[in-house]
């Protein structure tokens, strides 16, 4: 059951930890976050060289033919360092949609490039004023394959070579640079994620073969487990950084970590993380064994992870006192990332509704 910890996966985790320590420590993340670059191209190349974007893509499409659990391990580690990258958008959302489709041509055209990290995919679902996600009515219209409408909160939309767009009658592939496509990078709360608005005005789209609802349902499961894995990693960083500080910051003659007002919050965060970690493992197991439990396990993991991360990040700021609220401290980077993760890809209530649906209550 602790699938996401076999020896290969442990080795992968260690490699990524080393990559983060050498190339993408939080100081570097901050630099990238404050630049105009959506991510560090050098770090993305190294992640790609390790084969990470193709971990869950079958060999026939140029991937490593590993399991989703392998990719989750990578996401968890990258989550500890808030490493900005298009991995989630491209390898989870876009590749996930392609893999769930029946579109052999689209798969062989895009998956090998995504696996290599040479092309980036994005998934355009969200629309203004809608807190739901996945399979749901869309206001984007399609006339003869020409798409019109607006999508918001598109992760890595501005860097994408191909967008998978949800329209009222199905999913479409839209290539970047096609006529009638305007992609604008938004200023986002989360400095480590690049988020775009995509306006389609008679843009050329190619319909993706397969049952759109089923594809999006699958993608929602993938997104939920993947985000939960990322968040599990990020929570450990919130706890570790705060614990370290609680040992060196003195007040009234003692390290603040000796006081229960501080240590108990950290103990609670650790306990909550233990539950998040356990549910990510079980969801990853379900996903990898293609168990019928996958939708429930994935939704349950996300229902726990996103609010737990918000709490851990908030407490990280609070337990650092004044310093925790400064721009110079990393706490707000985590807090921004946590809040964003809680509201994007379906907010907390949507996730609870989805879990209730999948449980049949």
């Amino acid at each position, binding site marked *: 059951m602790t699938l996401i910890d076999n020896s290969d996966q442990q080795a992968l985790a260690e490699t990524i930890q080393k990559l983060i320590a050498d190339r993408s420590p939080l100081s570097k993340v901050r630099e990238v976050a404050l630049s105009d670059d959506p991510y560090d191209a050098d770090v993305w190349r190294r992640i790609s060289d390790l084969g990470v974007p193709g971990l869950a893509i079958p060999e026939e499409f140029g991937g490593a033919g590993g399991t989703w659990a392998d990719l989750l391990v990578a996401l968890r580690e990258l989550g500890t360092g808030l490493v900005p990258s298009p991995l989630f958008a491209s390898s989870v959302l876009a590749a996930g949609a392609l893999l769930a489709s029946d579109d052999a041509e689209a798969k062989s055209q895009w998956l090998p490039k995504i696996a290599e990290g040479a092309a980036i995919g994005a998934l355009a679902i969200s629309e203004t004023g809608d807190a739901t996600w996945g399979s749901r009515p869309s206001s984007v219209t399609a006339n003869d394959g020409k798409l019109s409408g607006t999508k918001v909160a598109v992760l890595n939309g501005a860097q994408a070579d191909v967008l998978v767009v949800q329209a009222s009658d199905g999913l479409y592939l839209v290539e970047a640079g096609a006529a009638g496509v305007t992609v604008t990078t938004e200023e986002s709360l989360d400095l480590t994620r690049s988020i775009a608005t995509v306006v389609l005005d008679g843009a050329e789209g190619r319909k993706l073969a397969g049952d759109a609802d089923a594809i999006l349902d699958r993608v929602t499961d993938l997104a939920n487990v993947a985000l939960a894995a990322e968040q599990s990693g990020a929570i450990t960083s919130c706890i570790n950084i705060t614990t370290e500080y609680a040992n060196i910051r003195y007040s009234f003659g003692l390290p603040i970590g000796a006081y229960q007002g501080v240590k*108990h919050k950290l*103990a609670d965060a650790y*306990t909550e993380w233990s539950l998040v*970690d356990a549910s990510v*493992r079980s969801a990853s197991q379900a996903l990898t064994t293609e168990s019928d439990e996958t939708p429930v396990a994935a939704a349950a993991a996300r229902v726990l992870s996103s609010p737990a991360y918000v709490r851990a990040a908030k407490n990280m700021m609070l337990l650092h006192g004044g310093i925790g609220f400064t721009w110079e401290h990393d706490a707000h980077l985590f807090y921004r990332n946590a809040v964003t993760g809680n509201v994007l890809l379906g907010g907390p209530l949507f996730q*609870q509704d989805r*879990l209730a649906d999948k449980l049949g*209550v």
Partner: protein
Amino acid sequence: MPAEEFRAKALAWLKENARPFSGDDGDYNPTLQESKDFQKKLAEAGLAGITWPKEYGGQGLGEDELIAFNEAAADFLLPVGPFVIGLGMPAPTILELGTEEQKKRHIPKMLTGEEVWCQLFSEPNGGSDVASLQTTATRTESGNWLINGQKVWTSGAQFSDFGAILARTDPTVPRHAGITMFIVDMHHPGVTVRPLVVATGDAPFNEVYFDDVEVPADAVIGEVNAGWPAAVVMLRNERVTIGAKGRSRSAPLGFDALAELAKEIGTNEDSGVRRKLATVYAREMAMAHFGKVLHEGALAGKEIGARGSAAKLAGAEFGLWASDAAEEIVGQDVALLTGKAAKVAKSILAGPGSATAGGSNEIQRNIVAERVLGLPKDPGAADRKTPFNQLKLSK
């Protein structure tokens, strides 16, 4: 035997011999004798002491089989309450620290339900701070020990045959250094058990008085004056027993029972109720999975250690949180101690007790923070060097 085969065997036996969860079992109150009969059959079927050595009546199997059994058992109401303490705490402690004689003498009988055990740690003047205990054991000329003092909140003492007791054997050394753990015969004439009625109106625990209760030299578990490390072993087992439990369909504050109840009452279409139920499910499952992570880690040689306290804390917090959730899900029926919601109402009332038993949430938080995360010791632990007889104690 592979775990799946074992699961099938367990399931077949349970179907034959145990009562499945039906959501309608408010009238299920097994007597002590029924419990003993059930435990005996369970042991005879090879389903007790699954991971324990064969020479002491166990099955000599692995954690996988244990997990398989627990998962299979989650859908049944097992009348094993009286044995939870004995098998969960004193037995593993004896297996770890006891003499060959003690193991042979007690473990098989504990497994078959012939011997019921209790844990005699807490005292009126200290539960969280177990090491402040004041019950004494003094050596007689013949080398036996005389126990005097009072224990309290002792679960199951009213029907226990034996107890694992902590007593002070040297008051002149710091409090952790002068404690010894003994096996005490609860039928000794010097033992008086008085039931204590609790918040739910039941009397599951007791105050227990010891008046010149003589125990032999070979009743010591571990070493004389090394009762504290023995207690730590037992408390660690206790947290693992209490926390990290599998998901049980029959738990009144669990997802299955609450979902069923919501349907019957007709609150299940309400979106707030549906969302609450979803969250109950997510938390309950995560706890079960956390238990598995710990067990599987242990299997791979990774000590559970103080993470058992995180499991205990998660379980206690779940009970308290699920009480609030149940109020929202079930609504006004919880105000009535009758009908289908009665079990939920009782569980809500019992929640704080379960959170306190086995060490309060605050104590578990201290343990997690200090031993898992490595935060500094609580300032209250500063008197570890003061001789016991010079310490300030509860009034």
